Each structure stands twice: as C-alpha cells, then as structure tokens.
C-alpha cells in the first residue's frame, strides 16, 4: 500500500514502473500468505516480470517525464473519497476475514473439494476446476488473450526491409558485446528456465502450476534471450510466423478437445467420454487443454514483446538515419 501511494507522488515514470514491479512482487507474496499458491506463481511471473518489462520498453519510446500539471485534483479526491466511503460502508455487511461459514465457502466449493478427487483424479483442485469444471470459462479467457495478441500485432507490427536489418544487427552487436558476464550467465540459465517451464506445465496436476504459468515462464526465457542477444538474433532463432501459428494452434487445440468430446456423445468439454474410463478421459482432456493454454499464452507473450521491441528498434533506427542525413551535408 505504501508503494501504491509512492506511485501517485512520483513524476519519474521509470521509478513508477519499478515500484509497480515491486508492488506485483509484494502482492505475490501476499497471495502465498493467503494460501493461493497458483495465483502467487502467476502474479510473480506476470506482475513482477513481464508487465514491468513491457512498461519499460514503452517508456523508452515515449519519454520518462510526466508533466507537473494535474487537472482538478481536489474534485478527483472528492469523488474518490465519496466512492471509497460508500464501498467501506458496503463492507460492513461482509463476512469476516477467514471465517469458514461465509456464503462463498458453502456453495459449490465443498463439492470441488470433496468430489474432485473421485471425479477428476488429480490432487490440485485449482487445476481441476480451471481445466474441467470451468473449462468453458477458461476457453473464453484464452480467446481473449489470443485476441489481445492479434490487436497488438495489428497496432504495432512493422514491415522490415532486409537492408535495414544488417544496420540494426551491427549496431546491436556493438552494444551487446559490453554485457559479456550477463550474456554468459544467461546462456547457462535459459535452458534451465525452459526446462522449468515444461516442468510447471506437466506438474500442474499435482502441485501449483499449469498452462498459464508455464506459458509465461517460457516466454520470459525467450524474452531474456532477445534482450541480451539482440532482436535480430532472436528472430533468427525463433521464426515470428511460426510463433503466430503456435498461438492459433493453441486455441484450436483447446476448442478441438471440446468438439471431440461432443462428437463422442458428451457435452462440450465433457472429458469423461474421451477415454473408456471417465477418470482417464479427464486426465487426457486436462493434459491437452493445458497444452493449448500454454502454447497460446507463451506465443502471445512472445508476439507482444517482439512487436513492442521491434517498433522501438525501428523508431531508433529511423532517428539515427535522420541525424546521419543531417550531418552528411
């Protein structure tokens, strides 16, 4: 909370973004304290990692200073205090923190906790609710992520000319040679990060983890590579068209699991009919769906980062060119 107040006061956007990363990490540790390990996992990877990174890339493009002027801070404060007061008045009817007889603990939750081992057969209840009981919901979320990826692609993608690429590559090489230690350490770490992502993907049934977390971690490893070795090197290693294909295939795989279970005579996303044994069918369905989620999330995160960074590279490059042109006459 102190961090949040500091964010309001700061004018230097760089410091604001750093504080936001800190805030993400703090809320992740708060989630651990609240027993929400899966959520904490995601928040640590997303809030403290990827979102900070994206904001930093944007700040390098837009400048880090905020103007001192604010419009009508008193009116805003007035509105905020009134709304906050009403909300606090509303909380007086809320159940107390940690009480087990709150209404939300007595509706569907007992069924998930008591019956999911019998019906789904995996220990992590969060995964079984995510991928089986509420699979349709999760399908919607994956489609939203996919759509956001397409949106970023539409807004920021630039067509590159091959002759520019060489310029940029040589420029990058000179810059990246200076960070020798980081590069070597990263080179050793990246395979382990990728391996860890796969572990999180497959172990999601038994411990905290799953497609969402694995996708973000996998993307983080590739983004690390792109940052340290330059975008053009990363583009050579990972074909952009291929990544876009993967994002689409993830959504397709997810949808297909639903349709196949319909064809087998069940409902949409009813995995019981996928195999002769209902529990085995559930296992198969969850495995495939987590793969779909993981593929889409990883690919969309990579697409988003590459497009932001590519845009920035192009802007800087055209900036360099115009200064060169002015100098030459």
């Amino acid at each position, binding site marked *: 909370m102190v961090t*949040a107040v500091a*964010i*309001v006061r700061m004018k230097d*956007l760089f410091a*604001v973004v750093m504080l936001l990363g800190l*805030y993400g990490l703090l*809320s992740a540790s*708060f*989630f651990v304290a*609240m*027993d*929400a390990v899966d*959520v904490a996992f995601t*928040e640590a990877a*997303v*809030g403290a990692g990827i*979102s900070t990174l994206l904001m930093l890339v*944007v700040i390098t*493009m*837009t400048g880090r200073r*905020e103007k001192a*002027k604010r*419009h*009508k801070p008193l009116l805003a*404060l007035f*509105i*905020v*205090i009134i709304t*906050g007061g009403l*909300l*606090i008045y509303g*909380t007086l009817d809320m159940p*107390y*923190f940690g*009480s*087990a007889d*709150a209404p*939300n603990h007595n509706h569907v*939750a007992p069924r*998930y906790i008591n019956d999911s*081992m019998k019906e789904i057969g995996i*220990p*992590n*209840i*969060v995964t079984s*609710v*995510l991928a089986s009981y509420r699979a349709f919901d999760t399908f919607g*979320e994956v489609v*939203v992520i996919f759509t*956001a990826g397409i*949106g*970023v692609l539409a*807004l*920021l993608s630039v067509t590159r000319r091959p002759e520019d690429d060489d310029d940029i590559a040589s420029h990058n090489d000179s810059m990246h040679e200076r960070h020798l230690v980081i590069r070597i350490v990263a080179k050793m770490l990246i395979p382990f990060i990728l391996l860890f992502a796969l572990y999180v993907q497959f172990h999601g049934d*038994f*411990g905290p983890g799953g497609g*969402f977390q694995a996708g973000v971690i996998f993307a983080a490893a590739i983004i690390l590579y792109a940052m340290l070795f330059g975008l053009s090197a990363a583009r050579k290693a990972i074909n952009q068209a291929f990544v876009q294909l993967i994002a689409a295939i993830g959504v397709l795989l997810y949808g297909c699991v639903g349709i196949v279970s319909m064809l087998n005579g069940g409902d949409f996303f009813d995995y019981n009919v996928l195999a002769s044994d209902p529990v085995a069918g559930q296992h198969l369905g969850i495995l495939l769906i987590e793969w779909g989620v993981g593929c889409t999330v990883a690919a969309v995160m990579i697409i988003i980062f590459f497009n*932001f960074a590519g*845009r920035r590279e192009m*802007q800087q490059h055209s900036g360099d060119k115009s200064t060169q042109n002015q100098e030459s006459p």
Partner: protein
Amino acid sequence: MLMGLFNNWIVVVLMMIGLYIVIAHGNLIKKIVGLAIFQTSVFIFYISLAKIDGGTAPILSDNYTLYSNPLPHVLILTAIVVGIATTALGLALVVRIKEAYDSIEEEDIQRQDNLPQDNQVQDSQLLTKNETENKA
C-alpha cells in the same frame, strides 16, 4: 470486530488510489499504472475472500482436511494473465498515440485535436520552422 473487515478496507483504499490516478493524472502511462493498481486490488479482494482460518492451499493431501476455496483462485489466475494481455494492448495504443501526436499528455492531445484545420497547418509549419532553426 473491526479487525475482521480489515482486509476489505485495504482493498478499498488500494482501489481508490488506482481510481485517483486514473482521474487526476494526464499522463497516459500513469493512467495505465493506475488501472493496474485497481486491477490488483480486485485480485487481492477475491483471494482474501477465499481464505479460511487454519486452511491450507487447495492441493489435496491426506494430511489436511481444511482447504481454502479454490474457485476464486481459478478466476484470479486467469484474470492475471488476461490482465497483462489487455494492458499490453493499452500500451500499444499509447505507443501509436505518441507517434501520431508526439505526446502522451492528455491536455496536449486535446489541444491538438481542438485546433481548427488551417491553424493546424500553420502550427505545423511553425513547428518545422522552429525545428530547422534549432538544428541550424
């Protein structure tokens, strides 16, 4: 009695800080940061609802019988990842606005929009003139 609702009040305060940033600040990136704080306050609200005293993480094991509610965890888990995707979309819009208006302050953008057409032409001519003078 009062301590029992403490978690809700923290959430409300955080939410209002986020709302204040969105209303009172003109800088578009700052606004997105405000939205992110608002968003996180909702996450904290859901997760604190799921907590049960003496419960443990919702991973079934023979050693425990009391688990916290898994449903809010699922909702927030997906919401976090969707949140970063939509934030990225917002940032992409900011980048395009910067390219089009050369500013990410709300007032500057509004002023440029309100200029009549001929003024705008003059203005841009003036700007280019200034730029050339500066460069010289």
